[in-house]
């Protein structure tokens, strides 16, 4: 009886393995790129991968990374891994790698010379754990941008600001003309992003590195950060009337001139492009809020969960090399509005804002993204704080700073 059961289980296992190898070259790729500009960029990746004779099975998860990541992690830890999945490179997938659930790509990386191709080097460092490479960075996204609607400022009769202080000064004129000065979506990460950008721009990159990297709680409670919290308080008042949820809804307020500006990463550029707007003419971008021209080098990377099927593993390798090929890098990043991870590709087609970003990158004015410095636990607590701060006028800047310092002190 027991013997027969084992045989049956074994037979079932064989049948299952055979069934899965029949669809060997189908590779499911999960990601959270669902806005107009993002979808156009994903289509470029899919096209390039299909050209290698494999088939891209799209597993887009709507919402945002905050919604998608738990689903992805649940599938990987639950034993139903997809072929490849997006994460922001950094510490989001750290424990999955430590638990041995992700595939090691060191061999392929050495063969194709990723260490020489990928620029800046910190991108690959985000993928590396104990000297082994576990992910493929596909783009560089920087958060430190202020997007301004030229139309909104023309309607209000003021010049388009060149930095944060001018923008704050122009806010009353915008409000008088019935325009929301600053559009911020209500999703948690957006308010944190706005704060981090203000922090880097007004207090400088060293302070940012000390607070988020070294978890310096004394500095976080000090006068330097008080300045930043005062500015965040201004931003809160300027954004009081923006009742939107998603970041791209906030961007479309800027596109239509209903809002003066938005603090958002360079992925907003994809939306301006889909709407047919021209950088410099219809909209203006100020990296580092026009104060400190610095960009962070976070971004998206693809991780490849371990597969038992050798055919799938082969397809994973094909996908990894396709993602880094020069042609894909150019096509993908132009649509996405992000910067390529290779220093050696030709980006003549890039627009003004992307060129600004490339210049800053070439100068080396870069900082790591918070995702690379802090664990998801700390980031979530900070998100909670700023969601509350931006919605609750009774929480003063001083109290918020005190709580911020406490979170920094306890974070890892």
């Amino acid at each position: 009886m027991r013997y027969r059961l084992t045989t049956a289980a074994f037979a079932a296992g064989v049948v299952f393995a055979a069934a899965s190898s029949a669809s060997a070259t189908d590779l499911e790729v999960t990601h959270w790129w669902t806005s107009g500009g993002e979808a156009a960029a994903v289509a470029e990746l899919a096209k390039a991968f299909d050209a290698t004779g494999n088939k891209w099975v799209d597993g887009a998860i709507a919402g945002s990374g905050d919604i998608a990541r738990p689903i992805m992690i649940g599938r990987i830890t639950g034993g139903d891994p997809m072929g490849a999945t997006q994460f922001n490179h950094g510490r989001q997938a750290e424990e999955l790698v430590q638990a041995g659930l992700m595939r090691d790509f060191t061999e392929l990386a050495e063969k194709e010379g990723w260490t020489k191709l990928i620029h800046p080097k910190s991108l690959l460092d985000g993928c590396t754990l104990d000297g082994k490479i576990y992910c493929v960075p596909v783009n560089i996204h920087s958060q430190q941008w202020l997007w301004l609607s030229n139309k909104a400022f023309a309607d209000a009769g003021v010049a388009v600001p060149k930095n944060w202080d001018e923008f704050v000064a122009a806010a009353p004129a915008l409000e008088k003309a019935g325009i929301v000065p600053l559009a911020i979506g209500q999703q948690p990460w957006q308010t944190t992003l706005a704060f981090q950008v203000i922090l880097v721009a007004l207090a400088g990159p060293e302070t940012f590195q000390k607070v988020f990297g070294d978890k310096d709680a004394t500095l976080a409670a000090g006068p330097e950060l008080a300045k930043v919290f005062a500015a965040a308080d201004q931003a809160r008042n300027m954004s009081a009337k923006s009742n939107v949820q998603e970041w791209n809804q906030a961007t479309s307020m800027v596109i239509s001139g209903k809002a003066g500006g938005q603090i958002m990463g360079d992925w907003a550029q994809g939306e301006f492009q889909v709407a047919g707007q021209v950088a410099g003419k219809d909209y203006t971008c100020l990296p580092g809020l026009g104060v400190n021209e610095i960009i962070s080098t976070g971004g998206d990377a693809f991780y490849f969960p371990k597969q038992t099927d050798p055919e799938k593993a082969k397809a994973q390798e094909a996908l990894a090399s396709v993602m880094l090929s020069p042609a894909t890098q150019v096509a993908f990043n132009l649509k996405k509005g992000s910067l390529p991870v290779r220093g050696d590709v030709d980006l003549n087609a890039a627009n003004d804002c992307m060129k600004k970003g490339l210049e800053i990158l070439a100068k080396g004015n870069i900082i790591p993204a918070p995702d690379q410095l802090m664990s998801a636990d700390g980031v979530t607590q900070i998100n909670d704080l700023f969601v509350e701060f931006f919605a609750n006028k009774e929480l003063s800047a001083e109290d918020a700073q005190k709580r911020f310092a406490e979170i920094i002190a306890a974070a890892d």
Partner: protein
Amino acid sequence: MTPMHAGRPFRLFRNLNAKIASIPMILTALVIFVGGTAWTVFYSFTNSKLLPRASFVGFDQYERLWATPRWLVAVENLAIYGVCTLVFSLVIGFLLAALMDQKIRFENTFRTIFLYPFALSFIVTGLAWQWILNPNFGIQQVVRNLGWESFTFDPLYNADIVIYGILIAGLWQGTGLIMCLMLAGLRGIDGDIWKAARVDGIPTWKTYVFIVIPMMRPVLVTTLVIIASGIVKVYDLVVAQTSGGPGIASEVPAKYVYNYMFLAQNLGQGFAASTMMLLSVVIVVVPWAYLEFGGKRRHG
């Protein structure tokens, strides 16, 4: 009782078929419910991050939990939502059932209408009420279009009253079921009791309060359990209506648990929060079960 047959000496083997048939359910209860609960409580004393890890930190997770403003807001919201849901759905449900019980015409039609919202999931309910309560499209705009320009009704955008906006949707969805349960209870009361009360000249409302309601005790207990379990697990309604906003004003414990387990990748914190949720249920259920079942044995 007749003496046992010689061939069946053990009590254990009496009703053997029934006992064997219930083994799967007993195993499920032990392994999944009790085992899962013990596992969760155990790991709530560790600093597990994305994956469970047995490195103990004592009560650290609980200390942090009770110092977190978001958790405190969530607990307060659950208390308000819980008390209001309990009171209003019982009162409204019973009133509707009593009205329905007056031998009215088209009773079937009314019953269907009142029960209909219960067929919708909380997600659909939440989204529908998000639109109804939206100040730019919903009730507020309709009333303003009728000429009352200064009318303001935007609970979902006002941090002080947002939980009541969620309560309205919850009541709309759940009250129909409570009404049906109550109606079944009322129909279970013997018609002779009504006749006797009328003969004695007792007013209708007194008959309800002093005779009928005490007789409906079993139905009331069932109803209470159904309502209470719905309260503790409220999650999808909030996610669909406000996703915890504005700010953190409409957070609930279940959402905190989910966010910290999967989004913040901090299992220890999530487990600590879910253990607190379990504790609140235990505090309510244990005294009740003691009264209910302990009492019965004495009568039996």
